[in-house]
């Protein structure tokens, strides 16, 4: 009895997924963004694929505030906390009212502190998730959980961008489908944008905020390199025609053409010389305080505009166990204008119809004080916000208790957040699976509920 005669469905799927490895990038020349997976062969891992249902968003920009932004001082206004400064909090500790002034913005009357005056201008676009909670009050595990769905470090899982790319492919075949800019160097490091047991096509490409990509810079003038590649491709084509040639050679031929094009396309995307000076100023790129994050925000817009499926940008330094006051002034000052500019730019270009922006941290902070001028971690109730494709603007889902310790309504675990993001992209989180080590894995592990309330 041989398996090719009696192929089970399980076997069929397994051999097709293993087949991703041997076949390759024939797809990468396919430039038609409307190409559907049902038309594309399964040997084109990065070609656009048909989602499970009609998507509300085509791509994501994740604005990650690594270290846990203090919500009580920025965008979670709690009158009870302001009234009870110095008293004992609901789970002990000494309540610390925010020292920053809050006021309401927009028609929704959303509260923001004076630290984020520019982002506050976009209050009516934001869809707040105020009932988030996660599992581990330590950065390494929580950052990894936010990015991969699971905090268990002993089994590395694929990152959410890798899952998205696996599920949807990408629109622009000249650029990587998943780009992460300035990712954390610790707290899981490369795990946060890795492919783990998914094939390597789906890993995130790491770029710094100056646009450096390894091995991207050609070593020969274009004409010389082209002549070298032409010769090399003639060798490859001759090899492909041999009767014992492996299937992957066609993919290798494509990969050299794609690499050649990427050498031009990627720097072009990451170079701002065709941007108006007013745009550069709007993002704060000429101001040292906002330059680095401003560049990240503008790169994110350009990459998204070019069809990159998943872009993550990262600002570290929010772990204010001490030096909360000055630290927040500094950090908020570095992101407020760039993030506001990104939202305005996306809106102005009509990109918010297809692009979803997620803003937030691996967890939140406590309403109580830690030392003289600090706040400790809070995993039981904290906010993030979404803007753009598929979510209700000016809407708030969930809330925490009157002090902002526990999520009490609209509670969403990290798995629920992931389920919701996948849903917005047209993917059913229970169907997006990959077989490894004897079972099917998901981004959402064995949990996850879509927050239907926020869907526009």
């Amino acid at each position: 009895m041989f398996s090719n005669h009696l192929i089970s469905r399980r076997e069929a799927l397994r051999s097709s997924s293993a087949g991703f490895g041997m076949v390759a990038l024939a797809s990468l020349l396919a430039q038609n963004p409307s190409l559907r997976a049902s038309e594309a062969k399964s040997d084109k891992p990065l070609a656009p694929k048909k989602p499970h249902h009609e998507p509300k968003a085509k791509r994501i920009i994740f604005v990650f505030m690594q270290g846990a932004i203090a919500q009580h001082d920025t965008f979670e206004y709690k009158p009870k906390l302001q009234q009870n400064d110095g008293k004992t909090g609901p789970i002990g500790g000494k309540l610390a009212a925010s020292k920053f002034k809050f006021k309401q913005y927009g028609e929704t009357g959303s509260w923001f502190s004076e630290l984020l005056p520019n982002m506050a201008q976009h209050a009516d676009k934001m869809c707040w998730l105020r009932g988030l909670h996660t599992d581990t009050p330590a950065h390494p595990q929580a950052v990894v959980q936010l990015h991969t769905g699971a905090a268990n470090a002993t089994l590395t899982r694929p990152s959410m961008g890798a899952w998205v790319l696996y599920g949807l492919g990408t629109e622009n075949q000249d650029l990587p489908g998943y780009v992460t800019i300035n990712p954390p160097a610790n707290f899981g490091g490369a795990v946060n944008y890795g492919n783990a047991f998914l094939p390597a096509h789906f890993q995130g490409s790491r770029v710094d905020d100056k646009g450096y990509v390894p091995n991207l810079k050609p070593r020969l003038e274009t004409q010389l390199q082209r002549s070298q590649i032409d010769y090399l491709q003639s060798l490859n084509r001759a090899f492909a025609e041999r009767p014992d040639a492996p299937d992957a050679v066609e993919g290798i031929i494509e990969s050299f053409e794609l690499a050649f094009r990427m050498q031009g396309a990627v720097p072009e995307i990451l170079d701002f010389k065709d941007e108006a000076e007013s745009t550069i100023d709007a993002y704060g790129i000429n101001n040292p305080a906002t330059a680095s994050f401003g560049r990240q925000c503008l790169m994110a817009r350009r990459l998204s505009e070019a069809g990159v499926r998943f872009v993550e940008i990262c600002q570290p330094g929010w772990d204010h166990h001490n030096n909360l006051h000055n630290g927040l002034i500094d950090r908020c000052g570095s992101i407020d204008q760039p993030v506001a500019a990104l939202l305005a730019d996306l809106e102005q270009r009509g990109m918010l119809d297809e692009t979803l922006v997620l803003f937030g941290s691996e967890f939140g902070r406590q309403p109580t004080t830690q030392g003289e001028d600090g706040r400790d971690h809070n995993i039981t109730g904290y906010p993030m916000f979404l803007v753009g494709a598929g979510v209700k603007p000016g809407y708030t889902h969930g809330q925490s208790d009157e002090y902002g310790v526990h999520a009490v309504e609209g509670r969403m675990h990290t798995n629920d957040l992931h389920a919701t993001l996948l849903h917005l992209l047209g993917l059913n989180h229970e169907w997006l699976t990959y077989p490894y080590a004897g079972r099917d894995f998901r981004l959402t592990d064995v949990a996850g509920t879509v927050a239907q309330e926020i869907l526009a």
Partner: protein
Amino acid sequence: MTPSIATENRQRGIAAKLCGSLAAGVLLLGSIAVTQGADVDEQAEHEFFETKIRPLLVSRCYACHSAETKPAGDLRVDDYNGLLRGGKSGPGVVPGDDKASLLLVRILEKNESKRMPQDGEPLTEEEIADLVRWVQAGAKWPASAEPVYEAEDLSDLYADLRSDHWAFQPLAAAAIPQVAQADWPRDDIDRFVLAGLEAAGLSPVADADRETLLRRVTFDLTGLPPTEAEIEAFLADSSENAFETVVDRLLASKEFGERWGRQWLDVARYGESTGPSRNIPYPHAWRYRNYVIESVNRDVPINRFIQEQIAGDLIADQSEGISNEERDRLLTATGFLALGVKDVNQRFKIRFEMDNIDEQIDAVTRGVLGLTVSCARCHDHKFDPIPTADYYALAGIFASTENAAGVRNKMGGSGLDYYNPESLIRLSIELPPPSEEEVRRLEEKVRETKAAWDAIRGTPEGLAKRPNGQPVQRRFRLAWEEAQAELLALTDPAARGAVVHGVREAAEIADTAIRYRGEAEKLGEVVPRGYLTAFEVPDAQPINRQQSGRLELAQWLTSDLNPLSPRVAANLIWQNLFGTGLVSTADNFGNSGASPSNPELLDFVAQRLIDGGWSRKTLIRQLVLSRTYRLSAVATEDHLRIDPANRLLGRHTPRRLTSDELRDAVLAVSGMLDRTPAEGTASSELRMVEMRDNGDEAKAVHAHSDASTRRSVYLPLVRGVTPRALECFDPAEQTLVTVKRDATTVPSQALFLLNSDFVKQQAQQLTQSILELPAADDVQRVQATYRRAFGRAASEQEVNLALSFIESFQSLYAQQAAANANETAAVGKGSAQSQEYQFVSTRANAESYKLAAWEAWHQSLLAAAEFRFIR
């Protein structure tokens, strides 16, 4: 995604939900088993706890001492065991003894700076009285208020699987099949293969030509290409046993152990640091790596090899008159169990330990048995007859074993906090002891600097900013850490002599309890240490109750009568030679894995392994000398139609080189490969403190790897710091058990081959060595490179194409140089543009243009698809 696969995925999604989820098909009893059978007093105590004590703990203590916040001082009060075990200072509660209960001691503390709660108002007298009363009455804590889950009854499924699933049945001795084409087979292996082909109406294709076969077997056995001399010798050897001569030479070479050792290191998820979360180097890991390579070269039988890695320390204890060298070797072997990923930032020791045990169980069971036993950590296995009780029977063995990797858990630690030198394994090599006086002096210095740090830490003075923006106290912390490092440099066992990361018997030998849903604190029934019950191993010895049981486990795992381990080991060898295993899921022989493509052949090969005394080399020799191995990769239409995946082995399946092989082959071809084995790596210079992906340590490790010309297996493999010359070509994911490397095609590979320093440099080296060949003309040079890179002669047409490329590139290059010179003159030196694109103009004369053309040609060959494939 095609519609049928989408449907399949949907169903598999549901399967995924079933697996691991207790939601489906599981009875939720839901009742809190508090009141059942409890007498009235106990019920009253529980009521008192729920109305008075728990709310108090929640509202006044949780902010700093619960699982959801940081358990300051490692104390948590949201879990009874946590409270009993206590934190750094001792047990939080001693039932019946309020004076000994630190919870109360600290609440009643006179000194305000030590009194609990630290923040917020002190407890009221009434609250304190309640706590005292509760502790004096025995500190009753209601049994788990967690919903109690009862597992789905899987006993029927399990009974069926035990008796029916192929992999759990003993090896079957099948009759050697009769074949029509009787003159084809060289070996009985071939008869099994041919019978399958004939049944499908196929014949084997022709044998591979000699050049192809030599390149194939040389890579397969050593991970390197054949040298020109080796090719010539084989082509010139017209004797009957020419191929056998080659195979025996390769099996005897030290490069054999480097290739086949690397394969086991993949399975053993070898890495030189703790990995994600907080990355602490394992500086002594290389000793285990070298143990593996040497053992493979010495052809230590696979059963013995596995036994050593699981119980080397116990084997050494049993062996009378054992030499120091052999004892060290056996202790080093246990690195297999110690070198896994660890989440050192874990707050709770018990979770840290249970996670590490799970990691060990996963590596052992997937690597040796091809079973995914880890699934049973939280619930009975959904696909295989592995109840949770079996998992914890194994867990007890590992819980009775100290994971002596040299690290400890701590949340939010820094510096040397994670380093635990006592937990490393000492080898016999030792240096004279350090001067006691010097040790005392440094101990004093540590005390002083620590006291100074403690005094200033967190005070307004300490937190004040210095002109450079750093807090004043930082200096004090650094002084303390520096003193610690100095003392350690003198007393560290690692500095005093050789140590390894390994395992040894734990201080406490005991069975362990089932954990509900895998949560370390949720204790269920204690299960005796033991083995899996999925299959029978008739000669299994009972666990030695005085020891952890690792020795008996190691014997049980590798018994000739174990139905899985010989099959798994033989299948891995098969997969390495034929591309796909007879079981294509080499780490999953369970019910959710693939069925064997040829079950009789699998058992035949497994039995061969056993009969050969579990000798790796003997089985490999038999397999590569088979006719099947020597087949060409040229398929006929019939083969492609009837057997597209080549599961019947009517032809050879080409394979892409692994990342290690590709780098090694580039170095071998350029003539730069340094074949000496390495002692240590750049990571053995690292201290056991956290390293970041982009810090100085990582940069130093990268710099070492970039400069090294040793074989890839000897490069430092710190998790998360993959050598740049390996990372594009699917290296083993170092955090995971890997039985088969991926072979993806991604554009970063092409960019690496076109633009990386490594490939450029090696193309230059290759050019130099080819142009220096004595008395050669250009045709001979082209032929020499073809031999080295592709293992074959170039056709006349290929030679002409090469020479015409070199010529045209050279003239193009000269034009470009002239154009650049003009541009530089026009724009002026040092302009950004000319800096950016000055590749060509750095070379100035016809000789250098020629060199550039040969370099470009050589690089093209290294980048070509043919180079990275063996056929």
